[in-house]
């Protein structure tokens, strides 16, 4: 290398280091699963997406203590709950030991929240209530109501507590929640940090584990954690540790391969230059445009290795002793440029896919590939120096070239691909497309199962059927919910559902509160009613002063708003069931034990402003409509790609030879996956595009090389190095613990093998 080359290299490396520091400082790695979810298109789909990442419920961690006898576990549960209640990282914790207490400041509001006096007024109901309380005193419950009697003679608090109680609660052992088999104690904790605030979730989880260690002492109890925040953490940790290991292994493998292929350590180092430059430029572009990058995007993005790593290989393998490196770079540029342009076109389809994660991936890939290609074309030639032809060292290449040229190539054999594809479409088990959103998210299925099981133990509302009431204002929505009550009562009566819950049960509309306020008796008439009722009873006439005071306060109190519930367990319930979005208010009505969803739909279908949601179907529709859109985008991209190739190659027979390997390989991959019973998802689509891009590159170079024997051997050398290096990376991905990465690894590995051989046999013109 000349001194000018060293200067360029040094300057380049400095620039890369500076870029790396900038990227590292700027770029936030996100674990927000929604980045990989399709963009919602209607209210139902928006809810599906919201329920995954944004809702207060998504901040819930479901905890289970196990590994000790039930008595010990219930003590641990109490100790852990007590400790977590003091933690700054957690908003609230529940283990069943205490029913949520009505805050003291809200006590007078019970007369505005209760529906007990909507039909008959408090003054009408009071004498009867006093008679009941007198009898309650001489019953086994007497000692428990006596304390509240002077303040709450109608037992309104008890009534509200019963109404607010979850329809079904988990089993209790020693006063705390347990699974039905009494082997695991259950707790629920809400983190202050949002589900996908990985730093906040990490703090909360560390705090939780520290508190557990402190509480459990020498016992053998273990803690199981479930919840969106925990998944985000797991995914991040896994992606990071796997990315690190794969990165190290891939680097060692590639350096070894490059050394073996060129016997020049320098080449191994220079070979990394376009890739590193491309990756850094891609990351910088994503950071600039999106602010954060998803861990999965990052993992995908590094599959760029498979494509960008090929560019310097083409340059190195085609170097000739008789030619300056610049001339070589100019010579390999046309097929290289065609390959880059077509791959970029395919990835551009993702840029407009509406899935943020995919758009990020497109941005990362397109920027990375363009920069890597430009680096190869304009920077590498000044660095490689003159070199004898590398292929001279591999006499075997000539033999392979001749042997492969002699192989029989009956065109009819190609019909096997579409035929087996058709057979796979017709006979393969399972659905062609995977519509279950939960399987498309990178959350390990075992965790999702554990989550579902815990939710069922905790008797949470039905996860599939949900109603949404929408309106222009919070008050309008609350009034609609109140109007819905008779319908809900009928649905419960008819047995369609066992119970329902919504925000207006905690926070009545202002109109209703005002009506209730006006219906409350003034102090004089309340005193008169009490005096009349106690006159001939056993009660002291002045026993109920606290009650009179509460009613008087309720009559003039400012109306109850949601802010009054702040800091109470009811806050979470209200804010997750009543929220504004895009200028509209929505309230969720949740159902318990849905027995007949069809009948419920028929009954509630008549209600204005109400949409009954089938969340599972909504999420499936979300996925499939998204896929249709992406496939349409890919269709357009394919058309553009054919146009680009046609413009570059100008002859129909050449275009056909170049496109054939890629098309046939796509058919083969789908055939193999479907025959193995795999349902295809978005990530398979991404992998198919990647494989197609590789196939196109192989075909372009083989096609380009056809004329000259030396050139053919150089191309064969280059493409062998390309294929092996790509296979190295993706075969490694095929062993990933993340199902998605595994799917990509398998798909692309098949693609590389098939593309290479098809390109070798089909794209090359007969000598």
């Amino acid at each position, binding site marked *: 290398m000349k001194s000018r080359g060293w200067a360029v290299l040094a300057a380049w490396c400095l620039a890369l280091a500076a870029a790396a520091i900038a990227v590292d400082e700027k770029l936030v790695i996100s674990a927000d699963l929604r980045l990989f979810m399709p963009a919602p298109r209607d209210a139902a789909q928006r809810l599906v997406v919201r329920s995954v990442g944004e809702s207060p419920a998504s901040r819930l961690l479901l905890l289970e203590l196990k590994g000790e006898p039930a008595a010990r576990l219930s003590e641990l549960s109490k100790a852990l709950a007590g400790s977590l209640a003091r933690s700054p990282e957690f908003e609230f914790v529940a283990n069943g030991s205490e029913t949520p207490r009505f805050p003291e400041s809200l006590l007078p509001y019970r007369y505005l929240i209760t529906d007990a006096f909507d039909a008959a007024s408090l003054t009408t109901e009071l004498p009867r209530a006093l008679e009941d309380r007198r*009898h309650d*005193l001489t*019953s086994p*419950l007497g*000692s*428990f109501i006596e304390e509240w009697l002077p303040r709450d003679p109608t037992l309104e608090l008890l009534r509200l507590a019963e109404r607010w*109680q979850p329809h079904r609660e988990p089993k209790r052992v020693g006063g705390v929640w347990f699974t039905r088999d009494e082997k695991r104690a259950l707790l629920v904790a809400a983190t202050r940090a949002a589900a996908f605030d990985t730093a906040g979730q990490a703090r909360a989880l560390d705090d939780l584990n520290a508190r557990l260690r402190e509480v459990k002492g020498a016992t053998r109890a273990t803690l199981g954690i479930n919840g969106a925040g925990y998944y985000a953490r797991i995914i991040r940790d896994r992606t990071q540790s796997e990315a690190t290991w794969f990165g190290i292994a891939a680097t060692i493998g590639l350096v070894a391969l490059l050394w073996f292929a060129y016997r020049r350590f320098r080449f191994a180092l220079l070979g990394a230059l376009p890739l590193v430059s491309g990756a850094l430029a891609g990351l910088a572009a994503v950071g600039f445009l999106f602010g954060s990058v998803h861990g999965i995007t990052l993992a995908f993005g590094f599959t760029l290795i498979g494509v960008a790593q090929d560019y310097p290989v083409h340059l190195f393998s085609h170097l000739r002793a008789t030619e300056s490196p610049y001339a070589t770079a100019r010579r390999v540029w046309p097929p290289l440029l065609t390959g880059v342009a077509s791959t970029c076109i395919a990835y551009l389809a993702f840029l407009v896919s509406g899935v943020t994660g995919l758009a990020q991936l497109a941005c990362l890939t397109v920027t990375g590939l363009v920069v890597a290609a430009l680096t190869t074309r304009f920077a590498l030639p000044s660095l490689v120096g003159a070199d004898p032809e590398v292929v001279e060292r591999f006499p075997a290449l000539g033999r392979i070239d001749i042997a492969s040229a002699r192989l029989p190539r009956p065109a009819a054999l190609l019909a096997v691909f579409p035929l087996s594809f058709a057979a796979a479409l017709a006979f393969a088990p399972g659905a062609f497309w995977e519509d279950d959103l939960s399987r498309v998210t990178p959350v390990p299925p075992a965790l999702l199962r554990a989550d579902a099981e815990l939710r069922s133990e905790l008797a949470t509302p039905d996860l599939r059927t949900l109603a949404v009431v929408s309106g222009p204002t919070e008050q309008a929505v609350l009034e609609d919910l109140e109007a819905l009550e008779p319908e809900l009562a009928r649905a419960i009566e008819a047995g369609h559902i066992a119970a329902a819950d919504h925000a207006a049960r905690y926070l009545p509309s202002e109109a209703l509160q005002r009506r209730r306020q006006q219906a409350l008796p003034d102090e004089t008439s309340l005193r008169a009613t009490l005096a009349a009722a106690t006159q001939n009873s*056993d*009660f002291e006439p002045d026993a109920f002063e606290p009650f009179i005071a509460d009613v008087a306060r309720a009559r003039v109190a400012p109306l109850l708003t949601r802010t009054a519930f702040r800091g109470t367990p009811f806050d979470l319930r209200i804010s997750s069931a009543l929220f504004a979005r895009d200028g509209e208010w929505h309230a969720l009505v949740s159902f318990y034990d849905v027995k007949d969803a069809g009948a419920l739909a028929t009954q509630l279908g008549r209600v204005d402003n109400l949409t009954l949601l089938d969340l599972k179907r909504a999420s499936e529709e979300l996925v499939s409509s998204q896929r249709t859109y992406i496939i349409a985008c890919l269709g357009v991209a394919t058309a553009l790609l054919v146009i680009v190739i046609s413009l570059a190659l100008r002859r129909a027979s050449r275009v056909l030879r170049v496109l054939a390997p890629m098309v046939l390989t796509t058919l083969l991959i789908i055939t193999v996956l479907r025959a193995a019973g795999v349902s295809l998802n978005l990530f398979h689509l991404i992998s198919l595009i990647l494989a197609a891009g590789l196939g196109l590159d192989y075909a372009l170079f083989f096609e380009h090389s056809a004329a000259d024997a030396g050139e053919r051997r150089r191309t064969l050398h280059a493409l062998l190095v390309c294929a092996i290096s790509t296979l190295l990376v993706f075969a490694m991905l095929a062993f990933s613990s993340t199902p998605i990465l595994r799917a990509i690894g398998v798909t692309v590995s098949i693609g590389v093998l098939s593309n290479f051989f098809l390109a070798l046999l089909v794209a090359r013109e007969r000598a």
Partner: protein
Amino acid sequence: MSREPPVSIPFREYRFSRVLKRPASASGMLEYRADGVLVRDVELPYRERTLVSGEGVILQREGRAERRFPLERAPQLRVLLEGFRALLDGRLSTLRNDFTVRLDEAGRGWTITLTPLDATLARRLTALRIDGTGDQPTCLEIAMPDGASYTLLGPTPRVRDVPTRAELEATCRTPLAAP
């Protein structure tokens, strides 16, 4: 005083409370059924049936909807009722988990005093006292911070219509005081 169920016994309860100007009373039959359910039938001055089981309390009152109080949600009530049932079954060792137990005896008369260990329960219940003669319980007293309840057991309660607490205490202690 362990008995083989079913057993039944008439009762008359007097309830003293700061919210009451005179003691409230109720009388009827107490039955400990073979299935372990304690049935408390009030006959006068109103009709009511209370069923106490391990699951909870069910209150049935004439002309009113049935009320249910699952014990899961009322741990203190559970302690009290479990204690009571342990007493009926003569399981004193079970009682010692939740109460300090004291037994005073004089001749054929005896008094068992239970003081709750749980602080939350103790706020509502000062002590539970059962008086008896021989194998016959005669009186159940529940002492509370703001009141008390005296349940006289047996066929012939020997008290005035509106007794004072002192008179009831005296009546309950009589067997113990007697030689």
